[in-house]
């Protein structure tokens, strides 16, 4: 009975606390000037500093998708432009956002959880509160905003670099010419695709940062607790990226 209660109540409790955290953060914001500097710092960390790793991952996923598509599909009966027609939409619709999401979950999510977790267990959050500051607004809002603002930048980067990587792989392995690749991409181009990817990237940016903030903000139990929050932030962010990916696909496509 107690176990059942725990099973049922615990998720509801967490969801409620998560919602409260967000509403508390966004409703009593106070003056923007207090957060501006923080926002810039976070945008830099979430966005600019993540560009190299995102670009690297995107280049490889583009290349791998190309090589695998070539391996699976190309035969004398199928035009090589199919590779462009498969790789580019995959990057735009799915890989660009999801690969970026996973990387950010590991890189940014873990970092946020570790930062906030440490601040929690060393009473820095209490110190902010004790000064009369809205610690949620001060710490969490800039991080979530940074996620929402900068994730699309990373998405665009990922797609462009991914297409570049795919094209490079295609040309390097000599399965399709640049022209054919682009023709395929154009013929199978979906107008809503980039919009969909962009919407995804906003959602993922929010999901990763808000979950990581939640995990970090409510860290308990010293250094060990920080470690736990950090891992959980990355893992749970990934799970919710996949979930929201599915939900968005169902709702928007």
């Amino acid at each position, binding site marked *: 009975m107690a176990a059942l209660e725990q099973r049922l109540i615990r998720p509801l409790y967490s969801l409620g606390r998560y919602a409260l955290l967000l509403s508390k953060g966004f409703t009593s914001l106070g003056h923007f000037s207090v957060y501006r500097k923080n926002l810039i710092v976070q945008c830099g960390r979430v966005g600019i500093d993540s560009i190299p790793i995102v670009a690297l991952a995107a280049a490889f996923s583009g290349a791998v998708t190309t090589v695998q598509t070539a391996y699976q599909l190309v035969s004398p009966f199928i035009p090589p432009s199919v590779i462009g027609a498969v790789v580019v939409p995959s990057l735009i619709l799915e890989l660009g956002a999801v690969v970026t999401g996973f990387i950010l979950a590991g890189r940014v999510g873990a970092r946020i959880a570790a930062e906030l977790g440490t601040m929690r267990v060393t009473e820095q959050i209490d110190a902010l509160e004790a*000064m009369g500051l*809205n610690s949620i607004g001060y710490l969490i809002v800039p991080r979530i905003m940074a996620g929402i603002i900068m994730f699309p930048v990373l998405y665009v980067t990922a797609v462009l670099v991914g297409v570049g990587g795919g094209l490079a792989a295609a040309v390097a392995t000599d399965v399709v010419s640049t022209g054919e690749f682009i023709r395929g991409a154009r013929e199978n181009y979906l107008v809503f695709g980039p919009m969909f990817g962009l919407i995804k990237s906003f959602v993922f940016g929010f999901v990763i940062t808000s979950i990581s903030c939640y995990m970090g903000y409510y860290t308990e139990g010293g250094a060990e607790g920080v470690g736990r929050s950090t891992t959980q932030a990355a893992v749970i962010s990934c799970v919710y990226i996949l979930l929201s990916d599915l939900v968005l696909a169902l709702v928007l496509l």
Partner: protein
Amino acid sequence: MICVENISKSFNGRAVLRDVSLEMQEGETLAIIGRSGSGKSVLMKHAIGLLQPDKGRVLVDGIDIGRISYRELRTVRRQFGVLFQGGALFDSMSAFDNVAFPIRTFTDSTEQQVRDRVLRCLDLVNLSDVGTKRPSELSGGMIKRVALARAVALEPRYILYDEPTSGLDPHTSTTINNLIKGLADQLDVTSIVVTHDMRSVLSIAHRVAFIHRTRMHWVGDIDALHRSEDRTLRAFVKANEYAIGHPAQAYS
């Protein structure tokens, strides 16, 4: 005036405070003593609403801080300066910026004014050359002193000290004790000092509250402490006197 009325608090089903009441007079320095883990810090955090009691209430200047909005609570909190146990310096900022933080956040001072004020506060705690250093580059004593400088930067009416001298060498401890005393005398602030350092208690406190086994075991002034026949209290005081000179043990 801060009034703690019959508060009880438990974490995960384990009671930490039971029916604790305490009243602080304006301008006095009150020491809260008790064994490590007895709930001193928990009690202190209730005074500024960082923790909410399961039962009972906390009044600050007659306002029940459990019943006001978050916005109002934050206004109430601005009258407090808090020195946390581990200093709680923001490790993303230099020592200087830590002290400057409340000034920049809550006043419209120019950068020059901020500078003057920060340097004055750092001077107060005998630190004038640490400004650019990060908390991770500072020793425990320095951290506490920077944190103290930060706590008093906005000249609060109430200052809460959580173990201000634990883990410090006797010399630094004395400095800090003098500082607390000096602040209390100069600024007419009401101070709450959570500690188990009896030497510190004896040199700075007007009154003492002793928490034992989740309850407010004994409350009285320093004279009464000397005269008290309470065996638990006497045992605690005695044990502490032996510990003096062994700062490592004194940390809780």
